[in-house]
């Protein structure tokens, strides 16, 4: 049938807080085709390595994305440190782990809220974001900032966290976790939520693998892959079990992220009492020479930072390969044949961070 509606979806669109654009071709409400368009927030910040020296560039790296800002900064630092052959202090490694996990929790909770908003469950959105403030409080107490808190630094951390504060955090986290149970139960069991998530946006294990999906996308399709197993920061001393779901639909991806929140709580409960004493940063001399990449697990999946130094203060090349970028091909695959009402839900289940993808 030729009864196809062609409409632009975005760049300004209320369910996509970030500007991406899809040419949606729909028949009744079935999406026949979705052609994406990017570049609305391309900043070209990789090019900025030519203007900012490698220590200063940490701030730029943190602003690749405001949600997983810390992990971006830390990943960049880690790549530079490897190139320079620095072994950072142990305490810094543990603190980095703490902040990564806090970032993961806040990012996932934020995502849960946005997902709820996408399928029109306003109350759930509010509930998720209300609890998320509790995590942001912890982040603010430990670092001084809410979303972009600038705690990463080449050679360690920019800030130390007092031990009495570290001792206080688990109680705060437990309070959040207790309340969160009620909310995640809704995602798991509620009739209307399941109607909107189960069987929507199916991505088979093979497709997920072939199309190069990463992170919760990949794990929800049954592939056990988690870069934290590589053991960066303090992850080599923590047992991290990749969280896997077999269903491969939006509900599976939601479940993966929910279980990861609880997993992060567990990790934090293990990390916080075990942060060793000592300094949190070290003095840096010289400049990076050579090239290397760091591979980290972001809330959205695997991220790769490539750094090439030439021995001067200014890097030759910096490159990020972000998880959202990797998840776009599976997204397009999932969008074909879905309902118009599913478009926001499916777009959101890749947890899109367009700022990351376009840099």
């Amino acid at each position, binding site marked *: *049938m030729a*009864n196809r*509606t*062609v*409409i*632009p979806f*975005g760049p300004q669109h209320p369910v996509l807080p970030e500007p991406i654009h899809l*040419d949606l071709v729909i028949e009744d409400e079935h999406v026949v085709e979705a052609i*994406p*368009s990017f570049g609305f927030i391309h900043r070209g910040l990789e090019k900025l390595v030519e203007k900012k020296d490698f220590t200063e560039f940490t701030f730029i790296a943190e602003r690749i994305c405001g949600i997983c800002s810390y992990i971006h900064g830390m990943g960049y630092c880690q790549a530079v440190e490897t190139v320079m052959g620095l072994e950072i202090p142990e305490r810094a490694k543990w603190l980095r782990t703490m902040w990564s996990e806090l970032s993961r929790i806040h990012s996932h909770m934020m995502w849960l809220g946005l997902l709820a908003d996408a399928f029109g469950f306003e109350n759930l959105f509010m509930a998720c974001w209300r609890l998320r403030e509790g995590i942001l409080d912890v982040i603010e107490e430990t670092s001084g900032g809410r979303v972009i808190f600038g705690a990463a630094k080449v050679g360690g951390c920019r800030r130390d966290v007092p031990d009495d504060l570290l001792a206080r955090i688990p109680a705060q986290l437990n309070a959040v976790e207790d309340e969160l149970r009620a909310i995640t139960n809704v995602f798991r069991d509620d009739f209307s939520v399941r109607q909107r998530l189960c069987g929507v946006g199916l991505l088979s294990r093979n497709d997920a693998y072939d199309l190069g999906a990463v992170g919760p996308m990949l794990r929800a399709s049954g592939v056990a892959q988690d870069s934290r197993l590589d053991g960066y920061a303090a992850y080599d001393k923590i047992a991290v079990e990749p969280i896997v779901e077999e269903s491969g639909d939006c509900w599976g991806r939601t479940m993966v992220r929910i279980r990861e929140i609880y997993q992060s709580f567990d990790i934090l409960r293990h990390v916080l009492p075990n942060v060793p004493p000592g300094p949190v940063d070290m003095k840096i001399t010289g400049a990076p020479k050579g090239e290397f990449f760091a591979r980290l697990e972001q809330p959205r999946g695997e991220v790769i930072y490539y750094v090439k130094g030439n021995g001067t203060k200014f890097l030759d090349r910096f490159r990020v390969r972000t998880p959202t970028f990797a998840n776009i091909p599976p997204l397009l695959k999932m969008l074909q044949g879905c309902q118009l009402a599913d478009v926001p839900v499916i777009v959101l289940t890749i947890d899109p961070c367009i700022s990351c993808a376009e840099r």
Partner: protein
Amino acid sequence: MSSQATMHLPLFLILFPLLLAGLLALVGGNATARSALAKVGSGTVAIGALALYWTTLHREAQFFAWDAVWLDRAVLTAEIAVALTLLLISLRGRQPLIALLVLAQGALMALAEWGGHAHPHVAAPLFVDSLSVIMALIIGVVGGLIVWHAVGYMPHYHHHEAQTPDRQRGFFASIFLFLGAMFALVFANHLGWLFLAWEVTTLCSYLLIGYSRTPEATRNAFLALRLNLIGGVAFASAILYIARTGGSLALNEVVASGSATALIPAALICFAGLAKAAQMPFSSWLLGAMVAPSPVSALLHSSTMVKAGVYVFVRLAPILQDTLVGLLFALVGATTFFFASCIAISQNNAKRVLAYSTIANLGLIVTCASIGNVQAVWAAILLIIFHAVAKALLFLAVGSAEHSIGSRDIEDMEGLIARRPKTALAILIGIAGMFLAPFGMLVSKWAAIEALMKGHPILPVIVAFGSSATLFFWTKWMGKILSTVKGAPPPHGPVSMEEKNAMFFLGVLTVGLCAIWPFISSTSVKPFLLSQFGAFVEFNRATILIMSIMLALIAALPLSLLYKGDKGLRIATPYLGGANVSERHLFTPSIGLTKPVAIRSYYLTEIFGERRLTRAGFIACLALLAILTVVVST
């Protein structure tokens, strides 16, 4: 038996079209003569019908005693001639089933005629009562306007369909034969005569549907013939039954004898009516009839053919009233109404939407007539009137629109209001007439719901669901015409004067009827109902008042467009996610520089898919008919 004075008009209405048909068959080869004859004919028929209406205002039914053996012989001869023609057609088209049906009919009629029982005698073979007059008005005025339209339309048709051989001589002759048969059908009191007219309309519909002689047209023409002949067999059986039981073949006496004795023949005739009115499971012939030129569709759908089917229902309503058979027929009608309305949602071919809507509305009429209480019959008659006018207008307007935009796809009518304002207005009025308060169809639908409540509540429930589906597809279509997304592509061809005239008059009629229906109801419908039921439902004056207010409001609303005081209005680009290009409906796509927005309506095929619902409807109606057969035979 009253005076013979007014007998001339009905006779004239029957014979004049036949005469014209003959004339056209002789001299119709000449285009000028043909169009002149057709115009004179259509005008005369319309004026004749109006004159009949005028002379019979407030009159009782009149019967024309006309007892002549040669007349019966003549009718018999004509019947044999029609049967032979049909047989010839079936043999030439290699249609054994049709031949079998014709032979079955012939056998039944022969049995009735010479079966060894007393020859039934009808003292007054023709009659006029207010129902006949209303039907004659519809046939004469609406049919006449359609013929008028056809005079202008057919040359365009042949211009667009160059490969179709020009056989307009036969075309116009068949149409007038058709009209004559329809007049005979509504004036006949002798069931044998009625049957003859019945078969002639079947024959004419075959000729008209197969006009273009394409394989598809021929196939659909045979389909129509086959299904209608099945009904014809039932009709013939009814006549045989009456003849064997020694009853009277006079329609008025059959009706008067009541449901105790006449239920079985009435059920058989109504079964024939179902086929002619294209009720499920016989609905497919009407959809197939879409291959014919638009005036033929208009004729078949609005004033003739299908209306013959519901006419017998209304006639026999007193017999069906308060019987299980009546309830079952009502259920068949309601089921058809529901399914046809739902299927129409999934159609994007304008003529198919109209066809399904016709099937649906006839279902509603059948339902009302089968319930047969006085209010239901009132609703049924009003539905017949309003439907004929609005549907004729719609078919003619869609036909003209098709010629000017080159497509009968509803999606291609986007923004027709800007491209062809008058044609678009005609379509809009027609659609509004079909389903919107306070237009005619809604008035009668409302009466129908009230009347059906007195029958069985399941009927109005089905009607409620069906009418919400009609709301969907009509509004969708109106919206398409009104939505101005694309620029206006240049129209194809001009619309002829005759087409404009016909559309104008039908448009005025559609709107005008909303204002004058209380008058028609009291002058024509009331006498009929009083004679049949001895009662009449008076309408609540307050309701009529509020309907009039609504009509006035709707009429006044366009005036607000004339008010140019809105200088503060800023025309902005539509919301396109911020991706607008400065022109109105272009946006910046992913690939390429600009792309137009395309907007298409919903067809909801996954729920209202044609094939699925047709099957469901057929099964439901067949089951009901099976129950009906069991009920009737026990």
